[in-house]
């Protein structure tokens, strides 16, 4: 299935040790540099089955940057807290609406 295995484009002899934060496929134009005319083709090249891989790579990139360095501070935990706050607030928004202090707003 591919879950828990190396990506098929990873070759240990060329790429060396496996870095879970890197994408080992063919490099595409970054989204920030795509021209408006190429947008359609760019979106067409996206691949739905690569989303779990992308989520995993994003998680590992965040890890490498904030959690795994030798001298981390409180930042990753603060980011986790804020992230959880946002997620749970949005989940419970329906209930929160009823606790508004005023009925009408500008």
């Amino acid at each position, binding site marked *: 299935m591919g879950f828990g295995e190396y990506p098929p484009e990873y070759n240990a002899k*060329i790429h*060396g040790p496996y*870095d879970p934060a890197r994408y080992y496929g063919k490099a595409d134009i970054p989204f920030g540099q795509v021209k408006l005319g190429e947008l359609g083709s760019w979106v067409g090249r996206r691949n739905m089955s690569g989303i779990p891989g992308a989520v995993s790579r994003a998680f590992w990139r965040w890890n*490498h*940057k904030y959690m795994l*360095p030798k001298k981390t501070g409180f930042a990753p935990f*603060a980011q986790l*807290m804020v992230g959880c706050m946002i997620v749970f607030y949005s989940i419970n928004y329906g209930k929160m609406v009823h606790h508004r*202090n005023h009925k009408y707003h*500008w």
Partner: protein
Amino acid sequence: MFRLSKALAVSSVGIKKVVTERTILSLNVCLCATVQEVRPLVLVRPTSTSAVQRAEQRDEANFPRPVRPVEPGKVRLGFVPEEWFQFLYPKTGVTGPYVLGLGLTTFLCSKEIYVMEHEYYTGISILLMVVYAVKKFGPVIGQTLDKKIEDIEQSWRDYREGSIIQVKESMEKEKEAQLSAKGQDMLFDAKRENVALQLEAAYRERLARVHSEVKKRLDYQLEVANVKTRLQQKHMVDWIVKNVKGSITPAQEAATLKQCMADLKALAPKA
């Protein structure tokens, strides 16, 4: 045929075991090697022996070895990444992101998309306590943890250095053992010479004994012969004397005595 395949299977298992051990060792060493040190004394160098690291197609330029950073990414206000501020800096300057944050929170609160209900005030209190705790205890905890990490890494380094020293010492001891083994050779030669000398000594002693024994026997024979001739001589002399004495008749005796007296008288006046 069966034996050949079994031997192949055993050797392949052995090779796999060796390869995994080597890769585990090399991973361990890579962990030590990939730590980016602030102090310039510690070397960061790859020391693995795995074939993967030495392959010709290894693309070092585009896929460098991942290095563990020492400092985390910069954040402002404790959780906002610095990159977001830098992203907005060209367009909005230094105060841009703060104004954005303030405006956003004002909008959310005034339209009551973010409802400030009782949980909000709980959150404010908890936030204050967390900020105070982090500011007060953070550096202390950070330093103790850093020291523990440093101790662990030092133990890794000491293990590696210690193993190298141990191996070198055993090399020296091996050389010494080889030298002493050569000495064993000389000892053996000396012992052999010793035994040869002893044999020679025993041979000579026996030779001397033989010589003395033979001489004794010859001396005995000589003595026997001497005694025999002596006895024979004595017996012969005695017999001759006895016979001569017996053959002297009394008349002869008187005549001889007279003659002697005349001789003596003849000699006396001359003196």
